[in-house]
């Protein structure tokens, strides 16, 4: 194996701690750090007080297309893009910083953070793999997450033209007590 640097290892452990605290899955930690699986599991148990969840990572790019997920993932990816292009951050640092800002923003809006950390990372990977792209809305000129190679002409975003059922679930129609946040806390069926 390569020569071990204690300082480098300390950095890696700090990175792993940050990632675990943000809710990263084990597969992600293995991909991003050079720490061994056993050490990562140990670290995870120490921080979270339980074993890391097992099973596959979410792998569907379609998830990012449903109404609310699209709003949240567009919000996140716009921040991430800014961090890489303007902030000149390393991709992994950019993911961490932009995910923190995304959490802060949803909290400020009183909304639930629909996008979890693993999905946020998957989102950036889908962009790297050219499965997704940012499309520009013809009405508001905002940039939104869309399938790569989708036709661009006349693209209108989910906020300018929300689907008819958007935000209208049982929760919002019966439990309407003047709460402004309740609308964004709903989940929608894929359209």
């Amino acid at each position: 194996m390569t020569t071990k640097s204690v300082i480098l290892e300390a950095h890696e452990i700090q990175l792993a701690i940050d990632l675990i605290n943000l809710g990263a899955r084990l597969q992600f930690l293995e991909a991003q750090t050079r720490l061994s699986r056993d050490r990562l599991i140990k670290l995870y148990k120490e921080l979270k007080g339980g074993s890391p969840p097992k099973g596959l990572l979410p792998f569907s790019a379609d998830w990012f297309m449903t109404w609310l997920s699209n709003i949240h993932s567009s919000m996140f990816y716009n921040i991430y893009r800014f961090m890489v292009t303007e902030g000149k951050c390393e991709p992994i640092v950019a993911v961490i910083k932009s995910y923190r800002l995304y959490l802060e923003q949803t909290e400020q809006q009183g909304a639930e953070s629909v996008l979890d950390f693993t999905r946020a990372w998957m989102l950036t990977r889908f962009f790297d793999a050219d499965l997704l792209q940012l499309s520009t809305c013809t009405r508001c000129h905002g940039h939104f997450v869309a399938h790569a190679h989708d036709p661009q002409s006349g693209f209108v975003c989910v906020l300018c033209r929300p689907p008819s059922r958007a935000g209208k679930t049982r929760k919002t129609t019966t439990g309407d007590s003047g709460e402004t946040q309740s609308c964004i806390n709903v989940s929608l069926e894929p359209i």
Partner: protein
Amino acid sequence: MKKNEIVNEVADLNLSYLLLAQRLVREDCATAMFRLGLSREVADLLGSLSLSQVVKLAASNVLLCRFRFDDHAIFSSLVHDDRNQALQQAHASILLLGRRSKRFANVAYINSLPMLRIAPAIDHNDD
């Protein structure tokens, strides 16, 4: 008398803006650039100013920070929006970031990273 008050208030606001901006930049430059809407060069410069420079800069009768929704179309669509607040803010933040990248982005750098490219809006005006 009244005029003096206004000038004082503007100078006070300038000073607190500059001090806040400086603190944010020194803490975490990239995050500060996102919050303040500044380019890297400006953020670096702001972070390197000495206190006396900040005080001198702040003592002005014009505001040093700028209103970020300076596009009338975007601003009015957000204000005249009857949706709930959370959605409105989500939309606002997406639009602000989109505008920024247009104004400051280093085009050559972005085009060297294919995943960061943005597909332009093609409007056929069919509606």
